[in-house]
């Protein structure tokens, strides 16, 4: 299973939650599969999806899902400690761990070698850290979303590989405004 197939599998599960999606191909694939205004697509600042989602989850009651990647988490690993100590119960971090920097040409990341993001997340203090296969991911995500009392970190171990895809035809402020409208904060759209 590659990332596109995984995101397709999760399509029905992430309809109404607030989603912060990692830069590059993950956002482009999610846009192609099921574009929704409550999806925030990152167009820059690689590594910060998990942090943006944390800030959001601290300020709203709805469930927040960060769809991140192994390369991006490796770039901003200190935020796992902030998540471990501060994430509220509406926060779920889904790390799509395909062992590669997919958007830049599938160069291998260290999760292919000795690095375990599961162990890093546990060591950083994150609660409910689950490492699973692509096939098991939807069930674990459903469990996280049904749990009102706990934050989760789910690491979905899948294959690398991309599908042909185009850039997202939305500008940043449009993404911002329709996202904020979906939580009732913009009235002029």
């Amino acid at each position: 299973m590659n990332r596109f197939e995984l995101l397709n599998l999760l399509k029905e599960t992430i309809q109404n939650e607030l989603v912060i999606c990692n830069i590059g191909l993950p956002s482009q694939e999610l846009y192609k599969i099921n574009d929704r205004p409550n999806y925030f697509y990152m167009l820059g600042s690689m590594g910060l999806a998990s942090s943006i989602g944390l800030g959001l989850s601290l300020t709203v009651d709805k469930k927040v899902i960060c769809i991140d990647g192994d390369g991006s988490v490796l770039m901003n690993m200190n935020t796992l400690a902030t998540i471990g100590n501060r994430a509220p119960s509406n926060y779920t971090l889904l790390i799509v761990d395909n062992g590669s920097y997919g958007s830049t040409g599938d160069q291998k990341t260290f999760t292919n070698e000795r690095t375990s993001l599961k162990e890093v997340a546990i060591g950083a203090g994150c609660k409910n850290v689950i490492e699973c296969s692509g096939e098991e991911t939807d069930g674990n995500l459903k469990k996280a979303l049904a749990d009102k009392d706990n934050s989760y970190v789910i690491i979905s171990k899948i294959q690398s590989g991309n599908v042909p895809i185009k850039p997202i035809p939305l500008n940043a402020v449009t993404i911002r405004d329709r996202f904020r409208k979906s939580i009732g904060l913009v009235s002029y759209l």
Partner: protein
Amino acid sequence: MKISQKIITNLKEGGADFFLSVPCKLLANMITILENDKDIYYSAIPREEEGMGICAGAYLGNKLPCIMMQNTGIGNSVNSIVSLLQLYQMPVVFLISYRGTPGEPVGAQGGMASVTEDILNTLRIPMLHCNTEDDLDKISTFTNHAKVIESPVAVLCNFNLMKDD
């Protein structure tokens, strides 16, 4: 403590209601005040760049965030400021302890001090310089200005202003 209290009061009056900090000894009193303030959210964080991300998320959730840090933190955060906060037009207040300004005992702080304003100018980030206690009265309007222009703004507090607080 008087200066620190005045800064926090002005930030809150300007609308800031979500605070993060990466530590600096000049920010220590402000951090103590925020830790005991039940009206706002406050957390320490390990690194400034992730703070820009957390602030972006808090803005999406309708907060006006403020991140407190040394000027060195601007150096750690340039891409996240340009490619996240400015790209999506998100207001965030940077409350900066301006290390390396006159009075600073640590010579090594001079390097980042010498480029801090050039970086902020290059990024077109409005700056408020606070050298005296009277300057602090401008922080409230300046904080609200971030919201009006939907952009980060920077409040720079010089070493000598903060050192005896």
